[in-house]
């Protein structure tokens, strides 16, 4: 809990805006930036704290970057700090994306832009595939999770249901099969 001193809300905002500008892609890409800015430079929390926040940020609703920022903001300046840190991290995105979206709106019909984006879409397809491959190694770990993944994908493709349903199905499935496995292990002991 050893902290140097409470940062001002403005400093909190600026620091997270800076992290927002330097991060491409969010999630894990943000971790090294947070380590350097928050742990080493500002000393607002320890390395272990940061990893805890990150872990919880991953398994709570919402964007991991925002969840982590809210945690650190809260740690340094309470509830208001949490809000300010979050506003800081989203601020650069708001400015940059708004400008880009407007530019694309104007030049969207330009033949070169159309050709370029036809190529870009292919890259996006491949990038999403890459994310799925990476994440699947950590998420699909045994038969029950494999069946759930296959079933979810199949039902989505056939009926295009609301993803919310599968959040609840996933939680229920996880609890039921965890308990079954735990019981089986208990018996064999």
């Amino acid at each position, binding site marked *: 809990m050893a902290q140097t001193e409470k940062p001002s809300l403005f400093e909190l905002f600026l620091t997270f805006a800076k992290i*927002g*500008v330097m*991060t*491409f892609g969010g999630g894990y890409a943000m971790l090294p930036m947070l380590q350097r800015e928050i742990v080493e430079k500002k000393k607002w929390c320890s390395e272990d704290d940061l990893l*805890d926040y990150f872990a919880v940020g991953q*398994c*709570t*609703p*919402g*964007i991991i*970057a*925002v*969840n982590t920022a*809210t*945690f650190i903001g*809260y740690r340094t300046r309470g509830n208001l700090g*949490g809000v300010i840190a*979050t506003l800081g*991290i*989203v601020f650069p*995105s708001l400015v*940059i*994306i*708004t400008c880009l*979206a*407007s530019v694309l*709106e104007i030049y969207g019909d330009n033949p070169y832009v159309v050709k*370029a*984006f*036809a*190529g*870009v*879409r*292919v*890259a*996006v*397809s*491949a*990038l999403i595939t890459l994310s*799925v491959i990476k*994440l*699947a190694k950590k*998420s699909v770990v045994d038969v*029950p*999770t494999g069946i*759930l993944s*296959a079933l*979810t*994908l199949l039902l*989505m493709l056939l009926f295009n249901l*609301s*993803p*919310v349903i*599968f959040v609840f199905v*996933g939680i229920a*499935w*996880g*609890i039921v*099969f*965890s308990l079954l496995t735990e019981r089986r292990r208990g018996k064999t002991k």
Partner: protein
Amino acid sequence: MGHCLFSLDGAKKGEDEMTFLILYAEFFKIGLFAIGGGMATLPFLFRLSDVHPDWISYGDISTMVAVSESTPGPIGINMATYCGTKVSGILGGVTATLGLVTPSIIIILIIAHVLDRFKDNVWVRRSFYGLRAAVIALIAYAGVQVYKIALFNGNRLRVKEAILFCVLLPLMLRFKKVHPVIWIVIAAAVGILFSLPS
């Protein structure tokens, strides 16, 4: 530039208060149910396009992913801002983003008070064992929607695009350290050189 930015606000169909309210509510819902980071919001954005076809098309979503991957900032935030801007200009972008982060702020501020108990809770661990597997399938589903636009024209396979995909994916798997923006720039150059879409 400034003029164009402002003209975006009024030019779109969604500029009344009701649109902003619905936009905020829709992104609040996404922020509440998309668990596992930025990419986990993607299936919800496709859903949004189904429910509000006048807001954003599947093609827009594909452009949105490319723009969000190649600009600074968390990808989930970038996508929400882009979506909101498409719906009703600058204010739309702000509204969507605020909607997306509101549930996070509330939930994290609550959890921050009871962090240690939450982290090691056995029910959280059990839930996540299943939830992660469902989320990966939802992201894969979103990927299939992008394939449909990028690699197919109706039922016809776009041959040049399919070849590009088959070259790009193994390269990405082989050179994992290369930043996504590099692949996007390469693909854009290929698109212009080989005169896509085919």
